């Protein structure tokens, strides 16, 4: 009886949090004029959310591509199919690894920072102060950050993919002596612009929304103490990662299921 009640209690809490998160998203989407009136803030957020994530994304992209090149070569050369190495690298990057790994890195690098920032502003009464100055904190703080995340993640994912392909090219063609012409020609004939590239971009937009939304929600609802903020930051990373991986499955099934 007791454990049934505790399950029910948890379930109700989860639902309540989901509803609050949805309401926050609605409030953000209802005030997009904040983007125009606070364009500078939007730019500043693009900087701290996007530009500052460039390094980690680029380095990870190159190394993931290089690892794909090595592993792909080892496996494909057993079947004398090294010529499809380019396809193997590009397809896995563009369809899956690019959007997913970028989103996971983004959640760790930028999402946690967003949560901590908003949570700390709440703890230092800056959110209340804004409200008392008759400024809506959602449109002043959350809207520019949300759209900065939404714009940054697809750009970062595209860079991750491009650098990954180049990393794979370096290993496959440079170190393993796969023919450069075959590498590109096979890739180009097998990777479809609409099906692969566009779908990959759509995925990364969705992941960008999910990661930024979760980060802002956790910060906004954080318990305004040091412990509360540290918990909220952890939750941001955990929830974002799980949501991205789960959503990836759904999107993959919808996009590539034909």
């Amino acid at each position, binding site marked *: 009886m007791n454990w049934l009640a505790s399950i029910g209690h948890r379930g109700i809490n989860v639902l309540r949090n989901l509803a609050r998160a949805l309401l926050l998203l609605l409030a953000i989407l209802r005030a997009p004029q904040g983007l125009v009136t606070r364009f500078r803030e939007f730019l500043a957020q693009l900087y701290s959310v996007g530009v500052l994530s460039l390094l980690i994304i680029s380095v990870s992209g190159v190394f993931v591509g290089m690892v794909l090149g090595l592993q792909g070569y080892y496996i494909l050369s057993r079947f004398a199919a090294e010529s499809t190495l380019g396809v193997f690298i590009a397809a896995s990057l563009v369809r899956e690894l690019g959007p997913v790994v970028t989103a996971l890195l983004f959640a760790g690098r930028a999402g946690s920072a967003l949560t901590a920032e908003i949570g700390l502003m709440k703890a230092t009464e800056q959110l209340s102060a804004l409200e008392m100055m008759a400024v809506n904190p959602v449109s002043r703080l959350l809207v520019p950050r949300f759209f900065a995340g939404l714009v940054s993640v697809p750009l970062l994912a595209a860079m991750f993919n491009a650098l990954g392909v180049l990393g794979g090219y370096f290993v496959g063609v440079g170190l393993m002596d796969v023919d450069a012409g075959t590498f590109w020609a096979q890739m180009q004939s097998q990777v479809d*612009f609409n099906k692969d590239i566009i779908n990959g971009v759509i995925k990364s937009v969705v992941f960008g929304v999910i990661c930024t939304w979760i980060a802002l929600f956790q910060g906004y609802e954080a318990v305004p103490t040091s412990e509360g903020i540290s918990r909220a930051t952890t939750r941001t990373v955990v929830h974002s990662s799980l949501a991205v991986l789960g959503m990836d499955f759904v999107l993959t099934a919808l996009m590539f299921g034909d």
Partner: protein
Amino acid sequence: MANSRFSLLTEAAVGAMMLLGGIALFFLAMQVSNLGGFKRVSGYQVEARFDNIGGLKVRSPVTMAGVRIGEVSSIGFDATTYEAVVTLDLLPEFNQVPTDTFAKILTQGILGEQYIGLDPGGSEQYLQQDSEITMTQSAFVLEEIVGQFLFSKAEESATGGGF
């Protein structure tokens, strides 16, 4: 404003990120995917007729000695002869393909994509815009081959064995 220098730097950095992202997307579109893949620098078109093209598609590669020299630009159907009419788009630098070249529909590996392989003949005359390749070999359709094999086996045992 007092912090205009900082915001100029910020704006420049954001601009650089946008630019890099754009270049990356362009690279993905043109170099990685089929969008810009095979440059169409006004090659010349030749036609080939096949009884069966199997899984050949528009943009499938056309190769000679394993080197890609063009691609399939269109696939049509001739309703009077019941043949598939395939237009090949060959790159202009490969302009010395003999007229008696043999076109075969081949498969990459055992289960791979299908493509057209050209075996050069010995003619001194070369294919030009709108020439036709007359010697063709249709796609290798696994079911037909297996069917033929079983049929001939059955015939063999019917005539030879007799019990």
